[in-house]
């Protein structure tokens, strides 16, 4: 799997209202400006298409930061 910097960039690219460089691994993604459940769906779709990992609501509840998301995806790709 790719590194965390590339992962952050991918998420950033999904939200075109975000200025480049706004997000870091430590960003709590729910605190992204104007965060809504639409953003959650976009992240699920991105991770599914890029990594073939399908996250559910409980998975998301376990994570706060983009680093958490990255770790979660990594653990799921390694296991499966």
């Amino acid at each position: 799997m790719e590194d965390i910097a590339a992962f952050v960039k991918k998420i950033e690219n999904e939200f075109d209202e975000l200025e480049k460089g706004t997000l870091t691994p430590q960003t709590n993604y729910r605190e992204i400006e104007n965060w809504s459940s639409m953003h959650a769906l976009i992240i699920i779709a991105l991770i599914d298409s890029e990594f073939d990992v399908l996250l559910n609501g409980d998975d998301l509840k376990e994570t706060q930061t983009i680093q958490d998301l990255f770790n979660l995806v990594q653990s799921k790709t390694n296991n499966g």
Partner: protein
Amino acid sequence: MAKFSIENIEIKGISAAVPKRIYNNIEYDWISLKEREMFIKTTGVAQRHVANFGTTTSDLCERATNELLKKLNWNLEEIDVLIFVSQSRDYVIPSSACILQHKLNLPKSCIAFDLNMGCSGYVYGLSVISSLLNSQLKKGLLLVGDISTLHTSHKDKSAFPLFGDAGTCTAIEFNQNGEKSYYNLQTDGEGYEAIIIRDGGARNYVSEVSLKSKKISDGIERNNIQLELNGIAVFNFSLKEVTPNINELLEFSNTQKDEIDFFIFHQANKLINESIRKKLKLPIEKVPYSIEKYGNTSSASIPLTILHALPKQLENKNKKLLLSGFGVGLSWGSAIINFNNVVCLPLIEMD
């Protein structure tokens, strides 16, 4: 494994009626303008047709049916079956199909019953009516649709801007020259709470408490006779189940993906549908949409999308379509059906 084929069936015509009144989601001021823009971009729903209070699904279906029967010039006496697929029926009791049998002047020899299904309802309904017709009946009417807007809370940003209303009619007949159609139908009731109206049935009979609006979370307030939608659960389910269901059907029917002329998906939301389209590696021109103008129209979305996007492509032609419905239940299914010279009526707008 509910994979099966049905012979001797031909679809003769499709019609649909939507309410004339349009709701533009950019004007949905319960949420901020930024949120509205984000919602429209992600779900694809810019506007939807909304029924006036008091207009029912059966009213829309009745109008669509009358227009189609006129066009097809069917002898009403030959109609042996009417199935009404809806989750917004006229009454708790009796079936709306019985009322429609009378309103449409169908003979007393006609079978009429309701199927209580939503997003998967068109595919399920087609399988049921086709199976019945294949027992040597003559002609059948499949009336499908919902007034979902009646059940959503204006203060629920997760459901209110998503749904639109529509009623459709599909005319089907027994025909020994009809080509075989194929089905793959599935269910997972463990997810029954993903899309639910909690009160008003026998499990939680309607009471004063049912009508009390509660704040669920930011931007979401509703009562218990209004629709509750767990967007993430539905999204997760759709991404997980729809693609394998379709691939199994293609394999079962020995059909190559590129033999299918059009893939018509239930119009859940644009992000879900585009994700499924990309998973299946389908070109965009084979996957038409109606969601931008009509929203998520529940069980009506497949026939409505056909009429909205494909009338010219289907007129006087023989095309192979794959239909896929998925959602409330949880229930999902797909079908491969030949559309041979199917009459597609222009969409009707009703006051």
